[in-house]
Each structure stands twice: as structure tokens, then as C-alpha cells.
């Protein structure tokens, strides 16, 4: 382990395109330090989700990385085989999506699904997977975790399902969590609870977070640094205080004005 902090994630010149069409992500570069929370904010079509999916190598069919590199703790993710990538996903790098319902298996009990995550990465999650699952369900403050473990996804509320996703994401002590609109589908009061829980788990495990969202309030509340994406490019980046309180790029200014009009 080095004493001078090296970036945990380093993305350079990332360019992604669908077939021969103009790139949807163009020359994107940024770093995430260990334990840091970095937000990528942008409107739909800005390329923020495609950037996240490139890191996980989960691009939709037809899309490919045209140029650029993605290094995770020195490991070139863009060059790994699918088999190697599978060991990274859910292990060193976990992911949470907007809609927990579509990520959970509808015919599998909650406890089994959480335990499954531990079983896939035995080297990282020690002990009996089932016991570990209960422990994690309790760590994300689900009341009566033994009972929740026996339930199916449709028997839980949206907020409870997102807690389950967080339990699954953290069961293997990931070093990086990529969260794509983790609270967007939730009611505001539940959103606050979920963001708070993510922060708590992140601090306990020292995890870095890359948070993808269209919601500037969520970035302002949770992130250390922010990258503003527009039409496939990063147009502005810096600490949340710099970027959101003193935006320099006209696009960031426009985005903030649109929210500011509320006041």
C-alpha cells in the first residue's frame, strides 16, 4: 500500500459510440480517490449513465469503447476479459441502480439473494453466507431482518427494496460503489433515509462512491466533488462548493438557474 494516495479509479479519454454514430461519451476523464464521493450530474442524454456502464463494462448492445482507458487500482478494466470482469463486479466494485425491483429476482427470497452475493465472492465475504445476509439486512436497518429475509421482493416497499440493494452492494466490502440514480424513484422522505444509509455504510467500510444523478440537490447533499456532463462531455468539474456555488460554465449556470427559479 502506498502512503501517497493514488486514485482508486482513473478514467482517461473515454469515448463511447453506438456503431458508427457520433460518440455519446467523448473524451471523458476523471479520478476517484479512495473513500471519496464523486457525483456525475447531467440531464437525460448527457452520457452520465453510459460513462458508469463503461466502467462496469455493461454497455448496451451496439455500444463500444472507441478510445480511452479505465484503470481501477491500476487494473485496466477496459482490457479485461468477461470472466475477469465478473470477478470485479459485485466484489471490488458494486453497483446500485434506480429501480431495485428490476434488479431483484422476483421468485427468490430476499435472504437467499443477499446470501448469493456473498457466495459469488467467497474470498471477500467470510463466514456463512446466510448468517452474513441477516447481518447485512440488520446493518441497513431493516426491522426484523429474519422475517424480511424470508420475504419476496414484491412484499417490500420501494424504500425497503433499496435497502436490500444496499445490503447486497456492501456485503463484499466493495472499494468502489457506483450508484446510478439510487434515490430517484423514491419519495423525498425515503430518499433522504436512503442517502443517509449509503453514507453510513460508505463511512463504515471506507468505500468510494461514484454517484450518477440528474438531481443537483442530491449531489449538493452527498458529494465531495462533482463532474457536470453535457452532450457526452464533462463541461465543468471541481469541489461541490466551487461548482454549485460559483458555476463557471454557462451550461452549469443554466442548470442551476432552472432549480433556482423555485426560490
Amino acid at each position, binding site marked *: 500500500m502506498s502512503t501517497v494516495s493514488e486514485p482508486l479509479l482513473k478514467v482517461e479519454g473515454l469515448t463511447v459510440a453506438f456503431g458508427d454514430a457520433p460518440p455519446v461519451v467523448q473524451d471523458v476523464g476523471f479520478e476517484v480517490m479512495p473513500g471519496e464521493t464523486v457525483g456525475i450530474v447531467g*440531464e*437525460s442524454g448527457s452520457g452520465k449513465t453510459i460513462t458508469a456502464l463503461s466502467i462496469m463494462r455493461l454497455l448496451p448492445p451496439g455500444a463500444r469503447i472507441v478510445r480511452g482507458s479505465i484503470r481501477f487500482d491500476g487494473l485496466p478494466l477496459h482490457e479485461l476479459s468477461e470472466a475477469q470482469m465478473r470477478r470485479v463486479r459485485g466484489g471490488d466494485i458494486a453497483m446500485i441502480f434506480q429501480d431495485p425491483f428490476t434488479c431483484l429476482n422476483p421468485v427468490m427470497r430476499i435472504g437467499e439473494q443477499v446470501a448469493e452475493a456473498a457466495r459469488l465472492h467467497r474470498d471477500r465475504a467470510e463466514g456463512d453466507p446466510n448468517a452474513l445476509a441477516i447481518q447485512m439486512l440488520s446493518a441497513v436497518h431493516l426491522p426484523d431482518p429474519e422475517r424480511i429475509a424470508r420475504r419476496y421482493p414484491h412484499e417490500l416497499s420501494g424504500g425497503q427494496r433499496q435497502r436490500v440493494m444496499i445490503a447486497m452492494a456492501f456485503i463484499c466490502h466493495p472499494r468502489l460503489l457506483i450508484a446510478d440514480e439510487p434515490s430517484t424513484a423514491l419519495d*423525498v422522505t425515503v430518499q*433522504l433515509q436512503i442517502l443517509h444509509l449509503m453514507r453510513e455504510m460508505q463511512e463504515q467500510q471506507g468505500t468510494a462512491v461514484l454517484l450518477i444523478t440528474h438531481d443537483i440537490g442530491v449531489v449538493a447533499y452527498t458529494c465531495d466533488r462533482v463532474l457536470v456532463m453535457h452532450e457526452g462531455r464533462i463541461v465543468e468539474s471541481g469541489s*461541490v462548493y466551487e461548482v454549485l456555488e460559483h458555476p463557471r460554465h454557462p451550461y452549469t449556470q443554466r442548470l442551476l438557474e432552472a*432549480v433556482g427559479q423555485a426560490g
Partner: protein
Amino acid sequence: MSAHPLVEIKGLKVYFPLAHGEVVRAVDGVDLRIHAGEAVGLVGESGSGKSTLARALLRLLPLTAGEVWFDGRPLHRLPEREMRPLRAQMQIVFQDPMASLNPRMRVGAILAEPLEVHRIARGRQAWEQAGRLLERVGLSREHLHRYPHEFSGGQRQRICIARAIATQPRLLVADEPTSALDLSIRAQIHRLLRELQEELNMAILFVTHDLHAVRQVCSRVEVMYLGKIVECAPVQRLFTEPAHPYTRTLLDAVLEPMPSQARRPRRLPTGDAPTATRVPTGCRFHTRCPIAQERCREEEPELREVGKGHRAACFYPLSGGTG
């Protein structure tokens, strides 16, 4: 403001029985007034019953109990045949414009339809009027020949709004009309609604979970929780002096775009919202309320005046009382 409201809802209940004997009490005893030309926000989280209330008001859903008066007419007992001419006066815009526009119809035909159905214009004249409607909502006459899929989400919502105002309604119900749109587009649609409300002297019932949106469109807000209105107030007052602990919880959960504000200390809401099949006894918010007392578990508070035009259903309101 005339003394006699455009819409008056009294003791409205909308229940949905489930197969195994349980009952969803989606709207559970609501009184609500909307005056002509007034923009009222109906705010609540999912499951609060806000959309059900809006649809029941337009008689798009059967009412379980209560009364709905529109311009002095008792909608709750009008036969459908007598409802039809009234429908021109009350229109609705939904969240997903793509789902409410026929993909095989040109925009011109979509807009001409209500004009023809309600015998306002026909043929070329209707087409002509459709062009004017498009221009009014910020699109252009050339768009008449296009199909819905050729437009962006924001443009499609403009088309839905154009269709809704075609009959010059006196009430427009907007049910989460901007929730699916990007931020910058949202603000534009809100501005458009506000302009139309003033220009056409049209009342708006703006149903949303988004408190920012309410501020941009409405002058008065009604807050709904588990089937009941728990607070109503002029918009500015609601934001600065919420009286109901639930409203306070909602406002406290709004994240400001400035980090220095967003990171202010805030109280974390407790627990999950109960479902409308198992409504708590007494005050329905008592299970999550930070200041609940013994009385709140047993007795249900009614809406009471806590200030000018400001009412809250709470035994221990947080502010007000002096007006």
C-alpha cells in the same frame, strides 16, 4: 374571487376493495375548494391518494361517498350523458405524454379531435384552430403534420397541454405533468401553465410530489397524507411556516442545490409510510410524527384554522395561531 367556488368537494371518499377483504382507503374524507382562476397545488408522496382525488373530482373514478360540485352542478349524481358537455370545461394532463397521445395520429388531428367532439369547430376551421393552439404553447404550425414520436418529451407535453386547453376549460387538472421531464424543461412547462392560467382565467389543480414545482405554479397548496388533507396554506406561508409536522418533514427532505444549504442539519424522517389498507388510528401521521402525544394515537384531528387562509389537522401545530 367570487364567493361561490368553481369546485367544491365535501367529505369525499374513494375506496377500493381488494380480493381478500381488505379495503384501500385511497381518499378518506376530503373537503376541498378551488376558486375560478386559482392555481392550487395538491402535494403528497406516493400512496397519499392525490391522483385518486384528482381523478375522482373529474369523475374518472367512481366515488364511494361524498359530494363533488362543479360550478354549482352536483357531479356526484349527474348521469354520464349530462357529464359529457361538462367535460369540455374540465380537462386533464397526465405525467406521460407519450401514453396519452395516439402514435398513429398527426398532431393536427389530435388537436382537432376535442374541437370536433365538443362541436367547437370542424374540418379546415378545426385544423386552423389547432395551428393557433400549437403556437400558443410554444410550438409552430408546421408541427401539425408530424407524429408524436417526432417530438421530445417536453414538446409532447406541450401538445397535451394544447389539446387540454382546446375547449377553453375552466379547470385543468395537471397530474405530475413534469415529473418525467428534465429540470430545465420542467421550469419552461411550469411557466407555460402559469401563463395559460392567467390568460384563460383557468383554475389549475396541480398534482405533484415536487415541492419546487408547486412554488413555480401555484398560489395555494394542499398537503395530503394517507388519504386526507393535513394542511393547506398560501404557498409562501407553507414554505416558511409549516404547521403540520408532516409538512415540516416533507420540507426538511427537500435538498437544496447549494451545498451550504443542502448540508444544514436536518431531522431524518422515521419509518416507512403506512399503507392505505391499514390506516393508523387517531392522527394518521402519529406513527412517524416526532412530536406525537397520547391524544394523537386515539383522536383524529380535524383541519383547523392556524392563520389567515392556513389550516392544519394537528392538535399541536408548529406555528401559526396568530395569523
